[in-house]
């Protein structure tokens, strides 16, 4: 009889991450209604903000022709924020129902459990982003070009990972779905205290100061560049750097909570 060949650790980890992502996908397929709020909220924000604040482009210093082009990356990033926060709420539900306890006694490393949640949120965020983009293009937003589109979708997926780390950190900290408003408000605050509504020069006092130091402003500018002009490395690398920093900080916090859980 042949001895069983042990599976390499990296392959087992990849399989676990894949299984956790498949679980998230199954949830989406079996309960399609669960995805509606994540898609609906950024769409409503896009249509609402465009209808309400569209006249802002008439202000001196507002160099974008159409507000649709200016605001669509924000709505796509908002969708990523909502999706990431929803991943945190789902993790809190798993904690409440005892599902995470079962995962914790499995031989899978803690970082793998977190990675499954975060990567699933990243992949899922492409659904609301595509939906909002389709509506925006239909309403007259400028075509960002293939390079602009790729950069925007990358920023959206990475922002969802940031939001999922934040949501997971709170879920593991509070172990309750009651923390959901904090997960959503945190992301909403982070994304909207940027150049979301208007260029930096047109923001009022305090918001201008916050937007200048908020790392997500760089993400917004990188995601927006294709819609309002051309894609350049100068506009892209600060966004990548900001996302790396946010992922490092929030990922470390979430992982620390994950390691503490159950001990």
């Amino acid at each position, binding site marked *: 009889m042949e001895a069983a060949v042990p599976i390499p650790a990296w392959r087992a980890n990849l399989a676990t991450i894949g299984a956790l992502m498949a679980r998230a996908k199954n949830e989406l397929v079996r309960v399609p209604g669960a995805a509606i709020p994540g898609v609906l909220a950024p769409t409503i924000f896009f249509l609402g903000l465009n209808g309400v604040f569209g006249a802002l482009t008439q202000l001196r210093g507002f160099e974008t022709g159409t507000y649709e082009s200016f605001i669509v990356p924000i709505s796509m990033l908002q969708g990523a924020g909502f999706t990431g926060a929803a991943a945190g709420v789902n993790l809190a539900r798993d904690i409440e129902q005892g599902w995470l306890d079962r995962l914790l006694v499995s031989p899978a490393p803690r970082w793998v459990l977190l990675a499954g949640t975060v990567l699933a949120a990243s992949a899922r965020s492409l659904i609301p982003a595509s939906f909002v983009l389709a509506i925006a293009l239909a309403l007259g937003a400028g075509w960002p070009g293939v390079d602009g589109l790729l950069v925007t979708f990358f920023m959206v997926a990475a922002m969802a990972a940031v939001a999922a780390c934040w949501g997971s950190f709170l879920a593991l900290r509070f172990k309750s779905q009651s923390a959901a*408003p904090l997960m959503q408000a945190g992301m909403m605050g982070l994304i909207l205290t940027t150049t979301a509504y*208007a260029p930096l020069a047109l923001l*009022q006092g305090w918001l201008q100061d916050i937007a200048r130091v908020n790392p997500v402003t760089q993400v917004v500018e990188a995601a927006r560049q294709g819609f309002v002009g051309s894609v350049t490395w100068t506009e892209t690398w600060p966004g990548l750097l900001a996302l790396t920093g946010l992922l490092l900080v929030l990922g470390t916090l979430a992982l620390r909570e994950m390691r503490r859980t159950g001990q």
Partner: protein
Amino acid sequence: MSAFAVNVRVVRALGMRSIRQTFRRPQLIAPIVVFPTILLAIQTGGAGGAVELPGFPPVQSFLQFMLAGAMMQSLMLAGNSGGIALAVDIEMGFTDRLFSAPIPRFAIVLGRLAGTAALGLFASLWFLAIGLVFGAEIESGVAGALLAIVLVTACAMAVGGIGAAIALRTGSASVVQGLFPLVLVVLFLSSAFFPVDLMIEPARTIAEYNPLSLVVEGVREPIISGIDAADTLYAVLAILGIVLLGLLLSARALRHRLRVG
């Protein structure tokens, strides 16, 4: 004790219960106060330059203009939260116990609405205080502030009636919670956040016919200029219309709930 006095006691007790429920759980008060406050701050900072647009009504600041919108957002969310709380009561069987008690059915709904009205009162005081702290003046003084408070409180109760009707009809908290995006749609398609004349079509046309715009203008005028009898009258009529709609829907939903159990 007369029947009227008994009904007042029941409404007061149920109203106090719903207020305590909200203030005891931060996750219930957060959407009513925290979200509109964050959005007020961000929109004021982000779109504040709008006051320079040709056609923008003369205002001291964009914050002063936005106070009415923040109050409307808050009261709409309070109405939605009241509906969610009533639906939870139905799901948990608490409403069934009230139905079997010797109290009039309308008092059960009115008690919940009294709680929603209290939240509306709290929201109006909160946003007036925020406005004053950050330098926004109430142009028509104390009388104008009182008028805004009364209109916001009454409108919260009116909107709460619709939330209660949906809760009674569906008996499901998740369904009522699912109406949250609709609250945002109704708000965006009104003059809550921007003057109607400066909005983009088709939002502009819809906002012109949205009764909520009438309430917004009734609350906003005393803050940005002065009390206007016509604006106040239109706001009161719009609130009465919402009350009537809420009453009709609630009565039908209550009959349905009693029939299906």
